[in-house]
C-alpha cells in the first residue's frame, strides 16, 4: 500500500511537471504570438509550422548562451536566487486538484486539509528569489526591483488572503478538493447558472463571490508581477529590474518562473471560482478513464483561457505608478475584501438556504 502510494505520487508529480513545463513553454509562445496579433504584427512564425517549435529554439538559445557571472556579485546567492524563483511556483501545484479520478486514483498530488493556506504559504516564499536576486546582484536597479517586489507582494498577499475567505465561509473547509466538490454540487462560485439555477440564495451569494473573484484575480496579477503591476521589472524605470544582472539560463529561470507562477495562479483561480475540472453534463472519472482524461483536459483548458486573459490584459493596460499601486492595494482592495467578508457572512447568517 505504502509503495503503491509512493509510486502513484511519483507518477503524478512527473506527469504534472511535464504538463506544466510544456504549458509554460507554450505560454511564452502564446504570449509572443498574442501580443503580436494585438499589435498588428505576426510574431514568431518561422520555426516549424506556424512557429510551433519556437519554444525549443528559445530553450536551446538559453542553454547555449555563455553563462557568465558578473564580478561584483555575491556568488552563492546570485546562483541561489533563480532556483528560489522557480521552485515555489511549481511546488504550489501539489495541492491543486487538476482532474477527477483516473483508474480510481484522485488527480491531486497532496490533498491536505489546509490546501489554500499551503498555496499562500509557498507563494509567499516566492518573494525570496526576487529579493535575493536584487540584493546579491550588488547593483542599484536590481536592488530597487527587489525592494519594490517585497513591498508589493506583502501588500497584495493581504487582499489575496482576505478575498478567498468568503469562499471558505461558504464551504467551511480549506481543502481544495472540497471546494471543487461543493462547486460540482451547487454550481460554480461565480456562475450560479450551473447546477440548480432556480435557487435565489445562490444568486445572492454570487455577489460576494464575484467581488472575491475580481479582487483575487487582480491580486494574483500583482503576485505574479504581471502588467499592470510589473513594477519589480519595469524596463523603463529599472532597466530589467531584479534580473538585470542575469544572463542565459539563469535569466531564463526567472523568466519562466514568472510563467509558471501565472499557470499556478490561474490553476488556483480555476479551482476556487471556476469549478475546477468540472464542466456541466460531463461525468467524472468514475465513469471510465476516458472521462478522467477529459476532466484533466477541461481543467487545463480553463487554465489556458485564464492565461489568455493574463496576456490580453498585459498588452492592453499601462503600468501603474508605484504610489498608485500601493494605494490600490492598501486603500482599495484591502477594504473591498474586508467589506466583502462581512457581506458574505451576513448573507450566510441571515439568509439561510
Amino acid at each position, binding site marked *: 500500500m505504502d509503495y503503491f502510494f509512493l509510486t502513484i505520487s511519483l507518477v503524478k508529480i512527473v506527469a504534472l511537471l511535464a504538463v506544466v513545463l510544456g504549458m509554460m513553454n507554450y505560454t511564452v509562445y502564446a504570449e509572443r504570438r498574442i501580443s503580436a*496579433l494585438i499589435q498588428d504584427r505576426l510574431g514568431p512564425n518561422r520555426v516549424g509550422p506556424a512557429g510551433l517549435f519556437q519554444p525549443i529554439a528559445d530553450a536551446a538559445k538559453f542553454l547555449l548562451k555563455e553563462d557568465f557571472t558578473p564580478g561584483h556579485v555575491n556568488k552563492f546567492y546570485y546562483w541561489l536566487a533563480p532556483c528560489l524563483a522557480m521552485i515555489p511556483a511549481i511546488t504550489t501545484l501539489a495541492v491543486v486538484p487538476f482532474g477527477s479520478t483516473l483508474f480510481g486514483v484522485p488527480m491531486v498530488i497532496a490533498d491536505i486539509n489546509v490546501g489554500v493556506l499551503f498555496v499562500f504559504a509557498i507563494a509567499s516564499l516566492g518573494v525570496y528569489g526576487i529579493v535575493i536576486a536584487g540584493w546579491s546582484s550588488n547593483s542599484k536597479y536590481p536592488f530597487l526591483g527587489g525592494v519594490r517586489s517585497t513591498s508589493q507582494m506583502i501588500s497584495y498577499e493581504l487582499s489575496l488572503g482576505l478575498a478567498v475567505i468568503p469562499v471558505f465561509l461558504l464551504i467551511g473547509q480549506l481543502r481544495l478538493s472540497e471546494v471543487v466538490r461543493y462547486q460540482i454540487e451547487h454550481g460554480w462560485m461565480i456562475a450560479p447558472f450551473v447546477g440548480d439555477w432556480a435557487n435565489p440564495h445562490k444568486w445572492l451569494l454570487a455577489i460576494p463571490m464575484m467581488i472575491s473573484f475580481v479582487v483575487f484575480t487582480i491580486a494574483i496579477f500583482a503576485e505574479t508581477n504581471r502588467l499592470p503591476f510589473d513594477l519589480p521589472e519595469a524596463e523603463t524605470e529599472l532597466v530589467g529590474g531584479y534580473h538585470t544582472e542575469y544572463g542565459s539560463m539563469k535569466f531564463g529561470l526567472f523568466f519562466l518562473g514568472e510563467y509558471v507562477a501565472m499557470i499556478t495562479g490561474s490553476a488556483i483561480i480555476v479551482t476556487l471560482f471556476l469549478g475546477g475540472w468540472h464542466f456541466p453534463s460531463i461525468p467524472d472519472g468514475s465513469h471510465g478513464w476516458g472521462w478522467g482524461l477529459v476532466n484533466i483536459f477541461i481543467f487545463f483548458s480553463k487554465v489556458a483561457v485564464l492565461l489568455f486573459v493574463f496576456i490580453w490584459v498585459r498588452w492592453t493596460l499601462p503600468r501603474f505608478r508605484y504610489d498608485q499601486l500601493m494605494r490600490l492595494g492598501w486603500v482599495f482592495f484591502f477594504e473591498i475584501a474586508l467589506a466583502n467578508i462581512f457581506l458574505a457572512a451576513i448573507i450566510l447568517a441571515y439568509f439561510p438556504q
Partner: protein
Amino acid sequence: MAITVSRPKLNWSERLYLPAIAAGMAITIKHFKNMLFGRTKVTMQYPEEKWDSHMPEHYRGAPALVRDDTGRVRCVACQLCEFICPPRAIKIIPGEIPAGDRFAKVEKFPHEFDIDMIRCIYCGLCEEVCPEQAIYLRKDYAITGFTRADMVHNKEKLLEIGGVMHGVVLKWNEKK
C-alpha cells in the same frame, strides 16, 4: 518658469477605471481578432517578399563607385569623401595614371578604395561632397558577412554594386 498642469477632475465612474479598462480591452481584442482572421495585413514576409519595387528614388543604401557610359571609373581619388565621412569608413590609396593613358590629365585614380560597411552610417555625405559624381548611394540594403573582413567593400565590390551611371557630366572627355 514652472508650469502647473492642472489634472482633470474625474467623476466617480471615471475614477473607478473599470469602464476605461473594459474599453481598452475591447480595442485590443478587436485588433487581435482582425489580425487572427487576416483582415489586417501590414507585415511583409521579408525574405520571400521584398519591398525593392516600393523603394523610393532617394533611398540611401550602400555607397558605391560608378562608371560612366564610356566605362571609366569616375573617381579621381581626391579623397574629399574620405575626409568628410563622419565615421571614417572610407579608405583610399591613390595611384597615378600613367602618362600614355587617354585620361593622363586626370593624374590620379583610386588604387585602392575600401568602405568599411560596419562603420558606414549611410549618411550620404560622400555622395554629396564628391566633385566628380563618382560615388552614389545605391539601393542595396542587405549587406551581410561572416567576418569583419567580409564587411569591407573593396574597389571591385564597390564598382560591381555601383554599375554604370548614365547622364552624368563627362567633363574629362572634352578637356584637353
